[in-house]
């Protein structure tokens, strides 16, 4: 790896480590602005994390090592997935043919352990949350794959770095409609995977209606911090993909990086906007939404295959 | 050669003479041993039959004799145990009848003369009828009566057919004889319509003895009511000889150039028998009747194999031997189960494997063998027959055969497993009406081992014999 590339990679790792909570900040800020409130400062998430990290944790007598493993594995898996992600047009730290499969399954690993941790509490509500999480996730999985396949087909490569790499702008010129469909589908998936409105309401207070939040009811202290950070990291990953996909412009490396960050910000704002203008769907509708996304992306793929 | 025929008859005479009920069965054993020895001696000094002999030993008769003498020896040993159990009954007729049966069957095997064959078959029929009545109750009587009437009807038709055959060669230049060799030699010069008619009458006649559907109706009754020992000898022995007789006739028919029709008739009758078994075996509560239908099925397979010709013919002769031995296993073990539970319906028979640690599992194994599961020998013979069907390009026949075999397997399986597995019903829990002793458990065991060995390793000599036998009807490996 040549030294400038190495530098870039290091820079990306730094971004990966530091930026995610900021996205949550942006989302919340957007919501409060649209809602006409002052709202929390942009950096509030960092404060929350710091506070949580300092706290001790309360554990239920029901729980076992699985409950403690949940947040740890969840965070680790998502972070590792980050290593596979190409940012700002530069290849990722690790990239190889079919690495996006690994990417998806790492997210799956995180989900698996979060759900187990939830079930470990023996609380009916957390069980409910876990059930919904795995259900919707398993419906989102094929949709995500289809979107990535569209990218792969359009760019003619089989690794994330290729799909989100320099060849992307060229792809837009030949396969714009397909890519657009894929982008929309990907955005829907991002909302679902990250438990945002209209699939889930991150700051509702009615456990019966929650998905992700209810799973982590019993976590506290560092565990909760890990979970929050992991969640933001996940949001960041999707945001990164979408930002590259949307603004995969050409130009100098610096420009690319700036565009990339800008894209992330826009993504966060978009999420916030959706959250402020839409209401949460009824549970029954969620699968329809996800299946819709899969069909959309499948259509996009077929556009390219025929 | 005469010794093999006379020895059993002599023993029969002795048996009728011996006063003591307990000592008489020894005669049976003696007859079986003498016969076995005689057959062995015959095989060593085997000379191909010469033109004009009334008795002769060719591949076909060798095979049938081998099977029978083995089976009969096993049955004789079994009888020692069985008859000692039934010392209440007078077994003079039983023992004598069995020996006469053996003698008659031997004649059929060796005879080169269709008239002689017919006489022997009739003698066998008549000798068997009283044996079926051994239990001397209304049911066994009815069975015997039906067997006798239907059997004699068949035999009468067979006689007429024999006459037709004789007539077909009665033209001034004709052989004017019933010696198989003469007729075959005369081959094309025989009058074909008469040969065809003869074949029909003989097929129906001997087919009745063989128990091909729809001529089988005596079978379930006779096998159901007769002692398992007799069932084994009928299903594994006598039916094979009826088949042998049909083969002889087929040889002539083929020589006369009528075999196209004959083949179709055989295939049709065979398939029908198998199909019928596939219907009647399903949900059959009475396991002895079930075995009877299984026997119908296997007769069908034999006819099918003969009709298909080629490899299938060799397979058929292989199957005849396997069927004989396997039937011995299932009928003898079924007999033991019947004795132990005092019933032969799945309503009151359960957990045989627990009550009879040898016969129960043997019955299961025998079922697997009889339904053609590898590695038992019948699998390989049925395999050969299927092979032949495909070889002749008769794919439909092959497919039908497989379908029927599958149904029969399921049908028999439900009954057999119901009998063998599970906990025995309260009354017979562990304490059977009669425990199995070695005299009654060993014979089927030995036969089972034989069947398995034949499956795992078929001696070249035997294989050649099957080939040669098939050669007589234009087939071969």
């Amino acid at each position, binding site marked *: 790896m040549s030294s400038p590339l190495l530098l870039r990679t290091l820079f990306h790792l730094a971004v990966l480590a530091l930026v995610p909570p900021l996205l949550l900040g942006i989302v919340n800020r957007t919501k409060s602005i649209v809602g006409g409130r002052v709202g929390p400062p942009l950096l509030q998430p960092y404060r929350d994390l710091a506070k949580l990290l300092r706290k001790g944790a309360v554990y239920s007598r029901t729980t076992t090592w699985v409950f403690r493993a949940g947040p740890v594995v969840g965070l680790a898996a998502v972070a590792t997935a980050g290593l596979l992600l190409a940012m700002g047009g530069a290849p990722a730290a690790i990239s190889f043919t079919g690495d996006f499969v690994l990417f998806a399954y790492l997210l799956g690993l995180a989900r698996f352990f979060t759900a187990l941790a939830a079930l470990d509490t023996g609380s009916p509500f957390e069980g409910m949350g876990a059930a919904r999480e795995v259900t919707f996730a398993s419906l989102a999985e094929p949709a995500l794959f289809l979107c990535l396949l569209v990218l792969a087909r359009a760019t003619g490569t089989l690794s994330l770095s290729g799909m989100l790499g320099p060849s992307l702008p060229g792809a837009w010129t030949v396969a714009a409609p397909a890519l657009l469909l894929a982008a929309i589908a990907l955005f829907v998936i991002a909302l679902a995977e990250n438990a945002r409105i209209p699939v889930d309401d991150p700051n509702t207070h009615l456990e019966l209606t929650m998905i992700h939040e209810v799973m982590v009811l019993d976590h506290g202290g560092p565990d909760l911090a890990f979970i929050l950070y992991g969640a933001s990291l996940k949001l960041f990953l999707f945001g990164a993909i979408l930002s590259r996909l949307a603004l995969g412009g050409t130009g100098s490396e610096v420009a690319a990086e700036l565009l990339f960050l800008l894209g992330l910000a826009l993504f966060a704002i978009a999420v916030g906007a959706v959250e402020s203008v839409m209401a949460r769907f009824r549970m029954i509708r969620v699968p329809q939404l996800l299946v819709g996304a899969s069909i959309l992306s499948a259509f996009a793929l077929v556009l390219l295959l025929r | 050669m005469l010794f093999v025929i006379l020895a059993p008859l002599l023993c029969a005479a002795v048996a009728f003479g011996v006063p003591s009920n307990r000592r008489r069965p020894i005669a049976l054993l003696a007859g079986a041993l003498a016969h076995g020895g005689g057959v062995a001696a015959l095989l060593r000094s085997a000379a191909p039959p010469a033109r004009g002999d009334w008795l002769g030993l060719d591949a076909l008769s060798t095979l049938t004799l081998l099977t029978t003498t083995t089976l009969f020896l096993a049955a004789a040993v079994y009888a020692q145990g069985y008859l000692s159990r039934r010392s209440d009954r007078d077994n003079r007729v039983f023992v004598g009848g069995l020996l006469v049966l053996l003698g008659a069957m031997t004649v059929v095997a060796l005879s080169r003369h269709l*008239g*002689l064959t*017919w*006489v022997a078959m*009739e*003698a066998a029929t*008549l000798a068997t*009828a*009283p044996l079926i*009545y051994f239990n001397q*109750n*209304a*049911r066994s*009587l*009815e*069975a*015997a*009566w*039906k067997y*006798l*009437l239907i059997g*004699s*009807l068949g*035999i*009468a038709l067979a*006689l*007429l057919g024999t*006459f037709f055959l*004789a*007539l*077909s*060669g*009665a*033209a*001034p230049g*004709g052989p*004017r*004889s*019933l010696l198989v060799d003469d007729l075959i030699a005369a081959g094309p010069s025989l*009058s074909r*319509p*008469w040969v065809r*008619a003869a074949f029909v009458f003989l097929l129906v006649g001997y087919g009745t003895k063989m128990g091909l559907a729809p001529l089988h109706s005596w079978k*379930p*009754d006779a096998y*159901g*009511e007769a002692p398992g020992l007799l069932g084994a000898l009928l299903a594994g022995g006598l039916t094979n000889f009826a088949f042998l007789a049909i083969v002889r006739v087929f040889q002539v028919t083929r020589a006369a150039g009528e075999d196209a029709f004959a083949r179709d008739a055989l295939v049709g009758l065979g398939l029908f028998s198998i199909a019928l078994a596939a219907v*009647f075996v399903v949900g*059959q509560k*009475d396991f002895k*009747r079930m075995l009877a239908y299984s026997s119908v099925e296997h007769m069908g397979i034999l006819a099918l194999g003969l009709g298909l010709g080629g490899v299938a013919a060799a397979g058929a002769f292989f199957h005849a031997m396997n069927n004989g031995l396997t039937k011995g296993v299932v009928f003898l073990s079924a007999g033991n189960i019947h004795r132990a539970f005092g019933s032969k319906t799945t309503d009151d028979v359960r957990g045989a494997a627990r009550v009879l640690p040898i016969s129960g599992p043997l019955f299961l194994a025998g079922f697997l063998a009889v339904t053609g599961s590898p590695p038992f020998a019948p699998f390989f013979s049925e395999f050969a027959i299927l092979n032949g069907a495909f070889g002749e390009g008769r794919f439909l026949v092959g497919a039908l055969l497989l379908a029927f075999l599958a149904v029969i397997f399921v049908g028999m399986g439900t009954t057999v497993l119901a009998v063998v597995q599970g906990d025995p019903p309260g009354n017979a829990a562990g304490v059977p009406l009669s425990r199995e002793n070695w005299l009654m458990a060993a014979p089927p065991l030995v036969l089972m081992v034989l069947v398995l060995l034949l499956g795992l390793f078929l001696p070249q000599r035997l294989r050649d014999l099957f080939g040669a036998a098939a050669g007589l009807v234009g087939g071969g490996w």
Partner: protein
Amino acid sequence: MSSLVELAFILVVVIDLFLLASSRLGAAIRTVAIQGALLATLPLLLLTDAHDLGHALVLALGALAVKGIVVPRMMFSAIREASIRREMEPIVGFVPSMVLGAIGVALAFAFSSRLPLPRGEMHPFLVPTALSTVWAGLLLVVSRKKAVNQVLGFLVLENGVFVFGLLLSDFMPLMVEAGVLLDLFAAVFVMGIVMFHINREFSSLDTEKLSALRD
């Protein structure tokens, strides 16, 4: 001479039809005996130079003895022992069975016309007579209730076969014929025993009783 033979054959066929129609057991048995005797004459009537006299004589006497005398006596004794009622108790009525018999005769003639005799010198009526007698026997066996009647049917059947056998009597070795008679005799003998047992078990010879065995 040949007209006599013709007469004999026709008589045999007529007897067949009569048997199908007869309603009295005793009469039927007697008729069968007569038929047997009639058949016994045939070997002599059909005597050609191809036969040797002694052989034919043996056959005739044997037939007469067995078919004409011994067997009918046994039947009568069986009836007496089992004190059977004298009716035939048909399953198929007398008229229908007669008609069937007649059809059988017609078929027999048609059938035998399709089967060219390989040797011309034989009498043209022989095969049809044999076949229609066989047919009549089969009908009797199938369509009558009592066990005795079935035995009777068998006798007629065997008579038919015997007639056919005459076709070959010139070259068919004595032994087989002896076998035929012997087996016939034995068959009836065994059936008689079984009939005796049936009577003991069911106190009647009605085969209606013999239908317990089923699936």
